[in-house]
């Protein structure tokens, strides 16, 4: 459950976000669209507690973020939120498996969840299970350097990382923009399946209106944002 009330955020005195009210119920698959520069990424950073709003209240899973200290917000994020970026999601010097299990270094909760889900296996077997579920079943691939993976494969590894240890929320910031339409559909499909299974709230940002119909809820940031960012584009 995410609640946003009277949120105001400015980058160095330039207002970017001004949202009166936005409620996202648990398990909802939310699609956020909006033109470039409208503040979508900024909003996701606010939800994740990486940026703090100048005004207003954000509460995630019943926890007002403003009540948390900086490092508490980081731990909260590690425990509850999985992230997928547009591209370059992976740390180049870590193996595929290490990239996926990375959140477990920062969150005990996700580690415990992941081990529970592994049914007595270790983190690696859980990572491989997720990769298989996302359509990556070539075990030889896991030994390779992440730089040798294709962009589509990289995005699926990133998705596996976001899903490992069943966070409450997965935030995806244009995760499909680097994929061709065929891979895009497959990626969305597997992401949806996993989120449905674990009852994960999915917040998905994209320019691609063709993906809209997969989601049960859809908002245009420009419509709910009181700051008119059109002029600045």
């Amino acid at each position: 459950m995410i609640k946003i009330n009277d949120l105001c955020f400015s980058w160095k005195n330039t207002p970017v976000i001004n949202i009166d009210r936005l409620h996202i119920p648990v398990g909802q698959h939310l699609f956020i669209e909006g033109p470039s520069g409208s503040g979508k990424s900024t909003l996701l950073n606010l939800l994740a507690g990486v940026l703090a709003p100048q005004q207003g209240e954000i509460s995630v899973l019943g926890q007002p973020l403003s009540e948390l200290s900086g490092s508490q917000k980081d731990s909260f994020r590690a425990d509850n939120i999985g992230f997928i970026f547009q591209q370059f999601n992976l740390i180049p010097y870590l193996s595929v498996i290490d990239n996926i299990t990375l959140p477990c270094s920062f969150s005990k909760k996700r580690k415990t969840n992941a081990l529970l889900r592994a049914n007595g296996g270790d983190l690696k077997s859980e990572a491989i299970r997720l990769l298989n579920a996302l359509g990556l079943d070539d075990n030889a691939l896991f030994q390779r350097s992440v730089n040798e993976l294709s962009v589509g494969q990289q995005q699926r590894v990133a998705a596996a990382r976001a899903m490992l240890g069943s966070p409450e929320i997965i935030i995806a910031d244009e995760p499909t923009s680097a994929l061709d339409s065929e891979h895009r559909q497959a990626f969305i499909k597997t992401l949806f399946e996993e989120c449905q299974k674990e009852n994960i709230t999915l917040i998905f940002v994209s320019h691609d209106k063709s993906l809209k119909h997969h989601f049960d809820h859809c908002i245009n940031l420009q419509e709910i944002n009181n700051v008119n960012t059109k002029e600045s584009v």
Partner: protein
Amino acid sequence: MAILQLALKSLWNRKLTFFITLFSIAISVTLLLGVQTLKNETKTSFMKSISGTDLIIGARGASSQLLLSSVFHIGNTVNTIKYDTYLTMNESPAVEWAVPISLGDSHKGYTVMATALNFFEHFSYANQQQLTTQQGKIIDDMFAVVIGADVAKKLNYKIGQRIVMTHGGGEIGGHDHDNIPYFVSAILAPSFTAIDQTLIISLEAMEAMHTDNHGHFGALPNEQTISSEAEHEGHEGHKAHEDKHESHEGHQSHDSHDDHKAHQDTHESHEEHQSHASHDDHKAHEDTHESHEGHQAHDSHDDHKAHEDTHESHEGHLAHASHDGHDDHKAHEDTHKSHEGHQSHDNHDDHKAHDKHQGHEHHDDHEAHEGHQAHDDHQDTAEQRVARLFKLKPQNINAVFVGLTSPQAVLGMQNYVNNFQDEPLTAIIPALALQALWQFFSVAEVALNIVTVFVVLVGLLGMLSIILMSLNERRREMAILRSVGAHPGHIFSLIIGEAAAVCFSGIVVGVMLLYVLLFVLQAPLAQHFGFYLDINMLSSNDLLILAVIQLCALTIAIIPGLLIYKTSLSDGMSIKF
């Protein structure tokens, strides 16, 4: 996965820059510690140059000059003191021993030091170590020379080899004392002091070279120097002789030896020869021989019943043929051998009363003597024979090394010497003078320290710039870490940890490199520079320096650490390029 493991993997991902930074720090650490080591070792070996000597007495002047000249054989040795002063000092009740030192000659660039035989007994260096020989024996012979280890090695001298000294510091034009050759009696073991580059001779020999006539005393009354053009006709028909004349083609002729029982020498000149020594009957027990040209020789013949003969010497020692008349000499059993271009060696079996030596033809070219090194018995030149008889004591010496009966006497003795009535003197306490002299080098020491500190600083700044440059390409890495829950503090410590790892491994490699260098350089340094490098564990001072370097690295890394801390806070998780 621990943040440390991440840091190490991240570092390994940037191996090339990592190793370059590591080695730049390692080299600067090696340089810094190497300079420290060299500095300490130089100081130690400097301080070890002399020990066990309580005072060094010399002419009045700067104590550093006296120390430099007497111990290190550096600088000119113009100032002298009277030999009598040495004798006076030696008699002083506070003085246990005193060794006179005289310098000023050289041999192929090496210092020639004249001293008394007790030098070897009393001189010590380092921790009361005495000089030891590695070959030969230190013998009490006026023309024996004891040579330092380096001299022997560089000039490839062997025991028994004949050498001549050069007046002055060996500069061009220095006069060769070639009429008084020395033979190498002993080679000293390396002491890593100035002695290694020194030839040690007797004071008497030094004085003999420095008489007005440069030791060209001439021949003894019954000896002649010999011409290479000499002919031997004169020997023919000496039927009464039982001489064995082994003359070789184109050789000099021989000295003839008289029957000294009669205490008479009769020298007859042969007409064929240009210059002669003619010796008349010694009935009057005094002959005065006119000199032909040039030098005069003063010989005293002990067995001539205290009669002195004065013989002329022969011009330039060249081209003389001196043939004694053998006719009058009965019962001779002389063996005359003369070798081409060489001295001749005579065995005078029946010269019982003679303590004199056989005559040599003296040649300017001493290289020609080399063929005769094998002779165990040193064959003196005529001049040497004379010099031996004179037993000249020097007028002046350069310094006196003094050992006192009790250490408490040092200051009193120093005071006594400094206020000596007969001539102005300076007495220095070697340990204190060495300390004082080392202070001269302290400026260089400070300069060296500053340079090495800057080298280390440059190494660390190199590390800083490489970390700073890596930050930009690592922003994505940082954003990903932030997205999975890393604190900005994690990111900060990632940078600090990286700097610490680079610097620490740099220090470790640097120290290893230092020891490798020390072990590799130890032998060549001792061999070629006479500098013995003692390899020790790192001193507490060294460890402190290393700790400071490590701390500096951490401090410097705060700069990129804070930068990335700030950007990871403001950029958030957005990955921008």
